[in-house]
């Protein structure tokens, strides 16, 4: 059994092409929000952690699909969780937009200039940058659960590869491999969006920053409405 299967490559390229269309539209606002909140910090480590988290979730879901061989069985069980994640993502974008504008004094959620004075806050501050960067991995894990058409399509294929596999382990690994390939394929488009939003001149132009934060709040509200109607 070769490690990379032709279907994995198909979904790697599918992720790549879908990334530049669908993902920019659906996940772009989240990526831009995170990018603007990073302010002066380096983009790459937080984003690699975020995508590693997202792809880990895809791999777990792909493994479950492959193991069960049934998309509808697993999808039915996680539907409620996905709806919750969509609401969470919307609220997160809204809070980030509000924090960026400093309309409410809560500081940037994952920013580096959050400087609170409380006992608990001081303890968090001691953990410093490492903690605030590390939070991107669990965030990726959670947001990997966001409902998305192309992800569902890849999961349908993962379930099918499971059905075709010889045993449970092979089925699980086949499902995981396919979803990892798909997730890796979506990275370039999202990194491009993140990089554009991370341009220094853009972050230091007060007007653009303000407009960006208002757009983020609008997109967050849109996410929440979509989630409630989902």
């Amino acid at each position, binding site marked *: 059994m070769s490690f990379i299967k032709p279907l994995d490559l198909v979904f790697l390229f599918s992720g790549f092409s879908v990334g530049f269309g669908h993902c920019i*539209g*659906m996940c772009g606002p989240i990526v831009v929000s995170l990018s603007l909140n990073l302010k002066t910090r380096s983009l790459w480590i937080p984003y690699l952690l975020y995508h590693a988290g997202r792809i880990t979730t895809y791999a777990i879901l792909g493994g479950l699909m492959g193991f069960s061989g049934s998309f509808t069985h697993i999808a039915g069980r996680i539907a409620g969780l996905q709806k919750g994640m969509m609401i969470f993502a919307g609220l997160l974008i809204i809070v980030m937009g509000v924090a960026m504008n400093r309309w409410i004094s809560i500081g940037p959620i994952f920013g580096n200039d959050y400087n609170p004075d409380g006992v608990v806050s001081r303890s968090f501050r001691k953990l410093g940058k490492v903690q605030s960067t590390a939070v991107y991995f669990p965030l990726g894990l959670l947001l990997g659960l966001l409902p998305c*058409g*192309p992800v*569902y399509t890849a999961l349908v294929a993962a379930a099918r590869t499971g059905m075709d596999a010889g045993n449970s382990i092979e089925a699980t690994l086949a499902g995981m491999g396919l979803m990892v390939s798909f997730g890796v394929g979506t990275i370039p488009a999202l990194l491009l969006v993140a990089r554009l939003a991370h341009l220094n001149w853009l972050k230091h132009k007060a007007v653009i920053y303000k407009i960006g934060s208002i757009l983020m709040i609008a997109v967050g509200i849109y996410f929440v409405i979509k989630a409630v109607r989902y």
Partner: protein
Amino acid sequence: MPDFVKALTSQAGRRTGNRFRRRCRLLPAALIFLCLPMMIWGRTARAADKLPHITVNCDVHKGACTQEIGGVEATLDISPKPVKAMTDLRFRLMLSGKPPAAEPYIDLGMPGMKMGPNKVRLEKVGEGVYEGTGIIVRCPSGKRTWKAAVTVPGRGTVEFIFDVVY
């Protein structure tokens, strides 16, 4: 020395020149930032406009739909009804005329939106009758229009466009 040379070589002139050069360097990035969302939205809108077949041509909830493909009739039926997303669906294709060179297949997708490959493999269950199972996934955008592109090897592809229930 002419005035404009004096102005350029003076400290204030150099500062103005540096500012100008800096702004020139920022211009491409500004253009990308401003144009990218417009390009994405524009491309999506154009893609939707270019698709003349984006209108629904099949009511799958009522019964089977028939279209012509390469001089023969292709009839597609999806069950159970009403046709719902995120459930296991049975696709039944009936072809008139001579049997095709290879077994036909169906690609499921949304008109004007890339969703990734979602193929329904069909197996022959009778003379000119093929069946297979597939799943229409749910798009969080709320759009309900889907297409089933039926490909019959040697004859071509025909698209059945229909609304599903979420």
